[in-house]
């Protein structure tokens, strides 16, 4: 087992290097660079930028260097100084920008993940056990609706309804009066009253998919001979289902873990923008749009690292959960 983990860790290094090269190239691929998009935005607002200023800025930001020079400068700073570079757009160090937003990002992501799982698992099992029942149809329809409605649409509708009929302030995680306030019970309640909206919206999309997967997996298992045997032995039906078929049906949850970690950082960008959440999603989106090279690069790299780590964790968990994998 430990040899397996060690091997995987060593393999991560070349994987990450390749990913960093590819991500840097992808970020540089669109025509123009940060400056051309910056200038385009300024011009759209009405500012006029003269060529001398543009040249000066290009020189200052080192955008005249060939791409491989820029790449090695960037990677060198990360590896040797832990310096992820400078965000052109925010004019702040990249690490500071990202770290500021991590707590809220993880809060929203964890809550919506827990929400999705706690809703999807019982419904999935129920739908499988009571296949083709009225309840199954009801949840299936609900699930497909959840899958079909775009998240941002749902978010806008929620915003409208919660503002119009419940008088909640739009977006964000706090009402204006609590923004500056120190933590208190009222502030916590205010947070909860805002938090459920992104949690439900982000959660719903995942829920629908998870319900279908759980249902299909449990159904597969239910028909297997060992279930029949256990049943004929008189094992309590509830205990039987939870102990055997469900345990196996959990595998897809665990193996999707690899994508949950990066999803926490980049997930639901559009929903976060619509809901005005101070998470990393909107930051990533803006960085890609404005070709803010180092900020976008840091994100892509971070996502890659998280994916690689996530996959490793899910493999380990899978081995732990399923003796068939562990022992084969």
């Amino acid at each position, binding site marked *: 087992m430990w040899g397996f983990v060690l091997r995987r860790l060593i393999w991560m290094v070349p994987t990450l290097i390749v990913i960093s090269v590819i991500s840097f190239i992808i970020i540089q691929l*669109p*025509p*123009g660079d940060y400056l*051309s*998009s910056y*200038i*385009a*935005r*300024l*011009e*759209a*607002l*009405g*500012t*006029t930028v*003269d*060529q*001398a*200023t543009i*040249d*000066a800025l290009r*020189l*200052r930001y080192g955008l005249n260097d060939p791409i491989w020079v820029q790449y090695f400068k960037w990677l060198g*700073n990360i590896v040797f*100084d832990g*310096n992820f570079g*400078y965000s052109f*757009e*925010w*004019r*702040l*160090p990249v*690490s*500071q920008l990202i770290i500021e937003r991590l707590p*809220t990002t993880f809060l929203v992501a964890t809550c919506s993940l827990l929400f999705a799982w706690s809703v999807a698992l019982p419904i999935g099992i129920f739908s499988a056990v009571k296949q083709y029942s009225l309840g199954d149809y009801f949840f299936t329809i609900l699930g497909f609706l959840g899958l079909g409605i775009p998240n941002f649409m749902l978010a*806008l509708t929620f*915003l*409208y309804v919660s*503002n*119009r009929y419940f008088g909640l*302030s*739009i*977006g*964000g*995680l*706090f009402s*204006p009066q609590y*923004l*500056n306030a120190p933590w208190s019970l009222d502030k916590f309640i205010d947070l909860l009253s805002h938090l459920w909206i992104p949690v439900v919206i982000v959660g719903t999309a995942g829920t629908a998919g998870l319900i279908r997967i759980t249902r299909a997996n449990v159904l597969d298992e239910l028909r297997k001979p060992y279930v029949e045997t256990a049943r004929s032995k008189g094992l309590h039906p509830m205990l039987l289902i939870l102990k055997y078929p469900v345990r196996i049906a959990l595998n897809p949850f665990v193996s999707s873990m690899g994508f949950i970690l990066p999803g926490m950082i980049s997930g639901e960008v559009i929903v976060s*923008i*619509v*809901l*005005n959440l*101070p998470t990393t999603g*909107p930051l990533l*989106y*803006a960085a890609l749009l404005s*070709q803010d090279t180092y900020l976008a690069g840091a994100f892509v790299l971070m996502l890659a690292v998280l994916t690689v780590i996530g996959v490793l964790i899910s493999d380990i968990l899978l081995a732990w959960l399923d003796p068939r994998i562990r022992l084969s």
Partner: protein
Amino acid sequence: MTLSTIGGWSRRLVGTAALATLLLSTTAFGAAAFQQSPMLDAAVADGSLPPIEQRLPPEPLVVTPVSEVGSYGGTARAMRSSTEEFGDATSVVGIESLTRLNAEDGATIEPNLAQSWEWSNDDKTLTMTLRKGLKWSDGEPFTTADIAFWWDDVINNAELTPTMPGDWMSAGEPMTVTVVDEQTFKLDFKAPNRLIELLIARDGYQGQIFLPAHFLKPFHPKYADPAKLAEMAKAAGYATWAELFAQKALSDDVFGVANFDSPVIRAFKPVSAIGSHLILERNPFYFKVDTEGNQLPYIDKVDVDLVQNPEVYTLKASSGEADLALENTTITQMPVFIDNAEKGGYRVLEYSAGFTNIANMMLNQTVADPDKRALFQDIRFRKALEIAINRDEINELVFFGLGTPMQNSILPIGGRCWDEAVSKTNTQFDPDGAKALLDEIGMKMDGEWRTLPNGKPFKFTLTYWPGEGGDAKRKIVELTQTYFRNIGLNFDVREVERSLYFEFTTSNQHDMGLWHADSATDPLWVTGPKIIPRTQRHGAFATLWATWFETHGEKGEEPPRDMKDAMAAWEKAKATGTPEALVEGCKAVVKANADGAWTIGTVGAFPQPLIVSNAMRNIPEQGMASWDWGYMARYHPEQFYLAQ
């Protein structure tokens, strides 16, 4: 209010400012006559802040409130939708330049930080005198040393400013800055440069012509140990001292990127950022008072929320979550704003949007295809396109009848530059006349579409970015497509992203471009006119000619006579810079564009909805909301107040 009231609004061409006159005078107040915001009382009482008399200059600038003397307190809420967009925030916080432009006529220059200024007889030397006793928000004196530091150590430092900004050059040479005493400084130019007076009134704010020297010197290698500075920069996460300095000196767009360290001269100073909110607080050393001696601003705090999604901006504005919103409140959303006004607790004011055209179409006269080029250079073809457009219909369908059918021009505000006849050139709707012109050129119908004069099939495409102005551009483009197709032209439309648009048009890969025509106020048109092919980025109607102008004849192709004349008129106006020269140049350029049918205008001079919460007072009932007008900054935001 309902939509029907919109119909009652006058189709105002001239945005005559009916706002209550803002009388600016410097009256001597008795020392005991000054009052301050209760927010500052505690700090004064415990001695951490000097008393009001010591904070204000001996002769503070007196601002006459728009309608009444206000009361202190409150937090004004504003929004921004990206790091660059600062219109709403500027409207609440204001801008302080050395001098300022009058809001009513748009052109008269008034004292602000500078109390007086005069030109030498040859118009080469500008002597400015700063107000005595001005202080930065940390209490340090604001003097000519702050201007000298900006010039000597920032502009003339190759690492901070690799290339001298064009504004400070005259006849190819940089100006010289001479400090006479603590209050007086001189700018010397090689050639007469009256224009600089205008530029200083518009852009002479912190970061543009002065910087807090006392605060920034510890971050500059001329005054600090370079080795320690390099260490400091590294510790803060920057690669060089110049990056650190740039961050510390940041003030040109304080709303995008908060700089909490630097002192300011404006009414509010950024103090913290919480999530998407940026909080600003009053500057206790601000130099203006109202007519009763109350130190301004009235408002204590400003909360600027970053709202990236335009629908959410509209939703928030229409539910009253901002005290002032104008930058992204487009006319196409007018019905939404009016419907929700009562529930949201706000008013909708009809300001003039600073566009002479939101969709200014530009047929590329230097297009690469030789057949198309010959056709596009034929003025009859361009005229046919102009009169094929039904501008009244566009006005009704897109602007609720509130705009004005017009060519790309200069807005009538101030009235000096405005010529109605010129602006209406070829704006009549005459599809038969258009068809006749196309027949005359020899574009025969072949099946569904007309061919080129030489009989080859013809198709042309509009490349555009639909942003800015809500969905007005998209709607106008859709209508235009039907108008052009109605006269038998195979016309297609391609939507692209903003930077891609510039990639296409600057590399001459487009038949037709489209951009919004702003920078269209008198006298500021001169700084960035969009109706002459001045730069590649704004010369989509003649990319190669624009290249020729921009590279002084090195690249591109030589433009025709009329375009060169218009460029010369603009350059003359810019070089002379006197008010008379600006008006003369303006008229020449507008006329050349209209006569030459260089750009195809549709509907302009339309209103911009201004959302004002019921609590927000002292906002002029009419005015203009545009970038080159400084949004609301000209209307003295420091005298806005929140009624309790």
